[in-house]
C-alpha cells in the first residue's frame, strides 16, 4: 500500500514537471517561433524601444531557452526577481509573473478567484452525485419501466443541452421571471445566505449536466454488477435485497463513478468557464476568459497551471480512494 502511494505521488510529481514544461513551451516558445514578440504585447505597440528592451531584459526573453525554463520553474517554486530596464521587482513564490494588463501579480489574482470556483465545483458535485447516482440506481432496478425511460430521456437532455442554454433558462425563470432568487454573487465571508442564494442556480445548472452523465454511467454499471456471480452468491446467502444492492452491488458500482468524479472535479476546479460567465461569477473561468480576450498571457498561464494541478491532485485522491475500495489495486 505504501509503495503504491509513493509510486503514485512520484508519478504525480513527474507529471507536474512535464506539465509545467509543456505550458511554458506553448505560451513562450510557440509565439516566439511564430514571430510574435512577447515583450511587445506586454508594453503595447506604441512603446519606445528602450521600454521594450527593458521588458525583454526583465522577462529574460533574450536568454537561452534553458535559462528561461529554469527561471520559470524557480519562479513557481522559489520566487524570482525581475531585473532590467532600470528597476528590480521581486516576485515571491509561487510566482506566475505579472498581468500584462493590470500589472498585478498573477498569484493573488488566482487566489482571489479560486474560492469561488471551488465552491461552485464542490457544491455542484455533491448535488450531481446524489441525484445522478440515485437516479441511475433506480433506473437500473426498474429497467424498462416508465421511470427508467423518463429518467433516461431527461438524462439525454441534460447531456446534450449546453450550459448557457439551461443556465439562461433557469435565470430567466427563477431569477427574473419568478423573482425567487437574487442571482448576484456574494462572497461567503460577507453572508452565507447571500452566497448560497447566488450559487444555487449555478449549482443546479452545472449539476444537471453532470448528474445526467452520472445517472447513465451508474445505470449501466449497476446493471452489469447485478449480473455478477458474487451478487448471486450474496442472494444465495439469504441477504435481503436492500443489503444485496446497498452493500454488495453499490461498492462495486462506485469504482468507475469515483474515477469520473476525480477527473470532472479536477477539470471544474480549473474553471467552469461557461457556468461562471453565464452567471457572472468571479471565478477562475471568468478570469481566464477575460485574460484571453485581453491577450493577458501570464494570467492564462497561471490558470492553466492551476487547472493541471487540480486535475493531478484529484487523480491522486481518486487513486488512493481506489486502493481503499478495491483491495486488488493495493497489490499490483
Amino acid at each position, binding site marked *: 500500500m505504501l509503495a503504491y502511494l509513493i509510486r503514485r505521488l512520484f508519478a504525480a510529481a513527474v507529471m507536474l514537471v512535464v506539465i509545467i514544461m509543456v505550458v511554458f513551451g506553448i505560451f513562450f516558445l510557440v509565439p516566439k517561433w511564430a514571430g510574435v514578440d512577447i515583450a511587445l504585447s506586454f508594453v503595447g505597440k506604441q512603446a519606445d524601444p528602450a521600454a521594450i528592451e527593458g521588458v525583454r531584459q526583465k522577462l529574460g526573453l533574450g536568454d537561452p531557452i534553458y535559462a528561461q525554463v529554469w527561471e520559470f520553474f524557480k519562479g513557481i517554486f522559489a520566487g524570482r526577481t525581475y531585473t532590467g530596464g532600470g528597476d528590480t521587482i521581486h516576485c515571491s513564490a509561487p510566482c506566475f509573473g505579472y498581468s500584462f494588463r493590470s500589472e498585478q501579480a498573477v498569484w493573488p489574482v488566482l487566489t482571489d478567484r479560486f474560492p469561488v470556483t471551488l465552491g461552485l465545483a464542490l457544491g455542484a458535485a455533491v448535488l450531481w452525485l446524489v441525484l445522478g447516482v440515485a437516479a441511475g440506481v433506480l433506473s*437500473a*432496478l*426498474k*429497467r*424498462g*419501466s416508465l421511470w*427508467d425511460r423518463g429518467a433516461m430521456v431527461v438524462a439525454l437532455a441534460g447531456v446534450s443541452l449546453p450550459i448557457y442554454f439551461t443556465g439562461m433558462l433557469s435565470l430567466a425563470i427563477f431569477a427574473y421571471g419568478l423573482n425567487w432568487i437574487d442571482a448576484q454573487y456574494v462572497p461567503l465571508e460577507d453572508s452565507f445566505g447571500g452566497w448560497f442564494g447566488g450559487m444555487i442556480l449555478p449549482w443546479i445548472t452545472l449539476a444537471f449536466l453532470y448528474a445526467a452523465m452520472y445517472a447513465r454511467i451508474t445505470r449501466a454499471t449497476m446493471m452489469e454488477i*447485478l*449480473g*455478477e*456471480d*458474487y*451478487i*448471486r*452468491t*450474496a*442472494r*444465495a*446467502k*439469504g*441477504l*435481503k435485497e436492500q443489503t444485496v444492492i446497498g452493500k*454488495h452491488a453499490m*461498492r*462495486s458500482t462506485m469504482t468507475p463513478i469515483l474515477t469520473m468524479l476525480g477527473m470532472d472535479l479536477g477539470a471544474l476546479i480549473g474553471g467552469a468557464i461557461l457556468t461562471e460567465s453565464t452567471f457572472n461569477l468571479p471565478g477562475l473561468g471568468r478570469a481566464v476568459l477575460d485574460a484571453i480576450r485581453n491577450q493577458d498571457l501570464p494570467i492564462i498561464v497561471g490558470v492553466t497551471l492551476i487547472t493541471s494541478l487540480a486535475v493531478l491532485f484529484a487523480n491522486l485522491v481518486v487513486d488512493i480512494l481506489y486502493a481503499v*475500495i*478495491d*483491495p*486488488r489495486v493495493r*497489490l499490483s
Partner: protein
Amino acid sequence: MTELSKTGAAVGEPTGASPAPTSFLEVRDLKVHFPTDDGLVKSVDGLSFQLEKGKTLGIVGESGSGKSVTSLGIMGLHTAGQYGKRKAQISGEIWLDGTELLSADPDHVRKLRGREMAMIFQDPLSALHPYYTIGQQIVEAYRIHHDVDKKTARRRAVEMLDRVGIPQPDKRVDNYPHEFSGGMRQRAMIAMSLVNNPELLIADEPTTALDVTVQAQILDLIRDLQKEFGSAVIVITHDLGVVAELADDILVMYGGRCVERGPAEKVFYEPRHPYTWGLLGSMPRLDREQQERLIPVKGSPPSLINVPSGCAFNPRCPYADLPKDDVTRTVRPELAEVGSRHWAACHLSKEQRERIWTEEIAPKL
C-alpha cells in the same frame, strides 16, 4: 405454453392436488420459463424428482439443458437480478422438508436460503465478492441467520475454514479472494455455504473451473462433509466422472426435461435412453481400453425457444425412425418405469432399447 402444461403435467409421479411430501426434497412438475425478445425460453419444462437426506442426486446435462436453472429455481433465485418487466415464470411445486416453496412467502424463502439450503457455484473467483475478505463474507453469511456478535461469527468462520482444510485459517480468514488459489477459493466457498449447517446443499459445477488434482481434493471434501453433516446434496455437472464419484441417483436432462432418472449404477450400466448412450459414447475414458473412435451425438443441442416437437432429442437420435407412425416427432414421450426406481422417456419399446444397448452400444464403449 398451455398445451405444454397439459402434456407436462404427468411427468413421473402424479402431481397436482396431492400435497403429501414423503421425501425431504420433492420437486413436482417444475417449469421455469424466461420471456425474451426472441420468444419464451423454456429452460425447465416439467421436471420432477425426490431426494432424501444423506443422499446425493447428480443432475447431468449439456449447456442449456436446464440443469442450472433448476437449481436456481429451487433456491428461489430464478428471478434474481431480473429487474424490469420480464420476469421468469415458474410453476410446479417444490417441497423442502414439508414446506412448499413456490407458494410460500418470499421473505420466508429468503430466510431458508443460506440456512436450510445453500449453494456452491462453479467459479469461486467470480462468486466471491472481490472487495471483502473471505472472513467478512463468511461472517456475513453466518450473522444473517444467527444473532451473534462479530467475534463469535469470526470464530465460527475460522472453524469452518479449518474444517474445509485451509491451512492457518486464523490468518487466511483476513485474506481477500484474490489472495487465495483456485482450490482454496472453492474450499472457502464451501466453508461459507456450510457455515449454517444447511440440510440441502446444491453444488453447481463445483469443480469445473478447477484443475484435475484440485478437483480430486474438492470431490473428496464434498463427500466427507456430506457424511459428516448428513445433508442432501444435488450435484449439477456435465462431467459423468464427477457424478459417478458423488451421486447415488442420476437425473439426465435434455432440452429442459428429464430423459432418464435412476440409481447411478443403473444409469451407467443399463441406460435406457439414446441420449444417455450418446453421452457415454462421446466420452473418452481413462478406465477402459483405448476406443478406436468416439461415438458422438450428431447435431447440436436444441434451442429452448423452439424445442423440437415430439421427443426433443428426435433430430439427433439415430433410432428416431424405429417407432411406428412417426410418434417420435409428434408425441412427447413421458417418463416410464424401465426398472426398479429407474425411469426413461423414450418411444422405443423396452425390448428394443434392451437389445440396442446390449448389442450395439455397450460393446463399443
